[in-house]
């Protein structure tokens, strides 16, 4: 397994928050796999992705393990960690415009990791960077190399960021809302680009794993192989994408799907009542309880655990049909059927 997060809990120093930022998050990404991570703002998606690079919030304490290729990121020494960040994992950001140093040329941004990490000569680095820009579909790559970020559009800049992310041949790509700030057509182009890169790497035999973070559940369900849904710092449901669309198990997942209107359906979109919990809200039972339409009195004291359903459960690989959801009602069903 390329990325294996197990029971990751991230706690802020006492007094800063009433509950952990992440609570017992377990998540897996295999080679050649695109895994979606979905949730409202503040649900812990970005924190999870940043934990893979050990970019923890200031003063935070992490327990559990984050293994990339079997090595625990949380236990790396600083030199190993820098190598891990520069070689093994790359990240694509939501807003490419703010992710680039505004006063540096595009070329500098691309050649820097090439000379620093791969040890290429300046000339080779420029050649490789130009090649990378062409491969992500930018026109006139030579001219782009000399331009500065403000001269390019958002979609072009996101391609630059993707090119930079791929420049050191990483094994794992973290796409944090990589397409959320782009308009619909550009979003489609960027998604197609990411798909084709994935395909290319699969054919080359060095599979690339992608963790695709988005707040758009239908997009994740359509684009990813498997989807994790997060709520209040917990994974509330995970299963293969098509299953998630057809048969969501957790009331929150169902709520998210009903939030978005669809063609050929006269129903008005139904928002989930209430608001997402903040870090100052603590829970005694299920965190989704106050917004859940099917809540029962026992939910108030039920400590959430992932309840497996279908297939072979959470332990399988990407082709596995099974999933899990953290809902007490599901637990009752499985227990009664067993």
């Amino acid at each position: 397994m390329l990325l294996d997060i197990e029971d990751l809990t991230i706690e802020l120093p006492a007094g800063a928050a009433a509950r952990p930022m992440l609570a017992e998050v377990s998540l897996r990404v295999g080679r050649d796999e695109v895994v979606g991570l979905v949730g409202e703002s503040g649900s812990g998606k970005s924190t999870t992705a940043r934990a893979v690079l050990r970019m923890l919030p200031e003063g935070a304490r992490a327990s559990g393990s984050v293994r990339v290729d079997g090595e625990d990121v949380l236990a790396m020494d600083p030199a190993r960690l820098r190598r891990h960040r520069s070689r093994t994992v790359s990240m694509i950001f939501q807003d490419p415009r703010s992710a680039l140093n505004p006063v540096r040329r595009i070329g500098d941004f691309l050649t820097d990791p090439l000379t620093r990490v791969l040890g290429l000569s300046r000339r080779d680095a420029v050649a490789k960077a130009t090649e990378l820009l062409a491969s992500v579909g930018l026109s006139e790559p030579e001219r782009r190399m000399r331009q500065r970020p403000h001269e390019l559009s958002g979609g072009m800049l996101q391609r630059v960021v993707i090119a930079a992310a791929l420049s050191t041949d990483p094994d794992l790509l973290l796409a944090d809302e990589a397409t959320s700030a782009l308009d619909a057509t550009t979003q489609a182009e960027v998604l197609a680009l990411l798909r084709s890169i994935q395909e290319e790497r699969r054919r080359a035999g060095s599979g690339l794993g992608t963790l695709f973070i988005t707040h758009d559940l239908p997009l994740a369900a359509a684009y990813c192989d498997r989807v994790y849904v997060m709520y209040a710092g917990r994974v509330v449901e995970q299963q293969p994408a098509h299953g998630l669309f057809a048969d969501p198990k957790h009331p929150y997942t169902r709520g998210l799907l009903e939030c978005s209107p669809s063609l050929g359906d006269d129903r008005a979109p139904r928002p989930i009542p209430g608001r997402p919990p903040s870090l100052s809200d603590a829970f005694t039972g299920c965190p989704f309880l106050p917004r859940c339409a099917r809540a029962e009195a026992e939910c108030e004291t039920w400590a959430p655990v992932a309840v497996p359903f279908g297939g072979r459960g959470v332990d399988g690989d990407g082709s596995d049909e099974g999933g899990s959801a953290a809902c007490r009602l599901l637990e009752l069903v499985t227990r009664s059927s067993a």
Partner: protein
Amino acid sequence: MRTPDRPARARRGGPVRLARGTTSPHPLGTDASGQDLLSRVLYGARSSLLAPLALLALAALLGVTMGTVAAWRGGWVDTLLSRVTDVMYAFPGLLFVVLVIAVFGDGLTTSIIALGLAYAPTIARYTRSLALAERSKPYIDAYRVQGMSGTRICVRHLVPNLAGPIVGYLVVLFGEGLMSLATLSYLGFGAGSPSIDWGLMVQEGQDAVVQGALLPALVPGTAIAAVVVAFNIVGVRVSDRLGKGR
């Protein structure tokens, strides 16, 4: 340098007769030793304008380093550096400088180093506030995600991006530095005779003021005032331009 007269050519005679008003060979008059004031002011510009530059270079090096390290490392490093800065801030600058000079002896070099140390906290504090804002920008995160070391991010990207507002601030500080150095020479701690320095010239000229000859003190005094005002005006413009450009 071309000046109407050699700046150090004295003439014979008592001070009253020699400190003369404007005459055609001496458009700004002469001082108590009969030396041409215009020539002396022009020569004095050398040390009076270069010394603040050296002072600012030293102060900027120290201040920017301290401010950036404090902002980048945070935690106890920040607390320590900020407290040191606060102490320096609370301590009267001139008193500190006089203390340093009392220990290490007077002279231009000592006053430049002492003032450089006295100015560093101001620059450190300003840099820290700028660096804190810049550090939280996503592009810095993007470099960290690429596995770039903190030192490299600071030296290659963070500090260069702060250069605009810092340079603007330094231009304003230049006038202040010139003032302080002139004050020190006037008090006799800085450049001493026979070197030619505006502050020193004011001090040398003040005896003649009592005897009715204003020019020997007025001319270098005006030069100091003009440069300080000019740098303040330019400095405010420059910091406006560079600070808000991005």
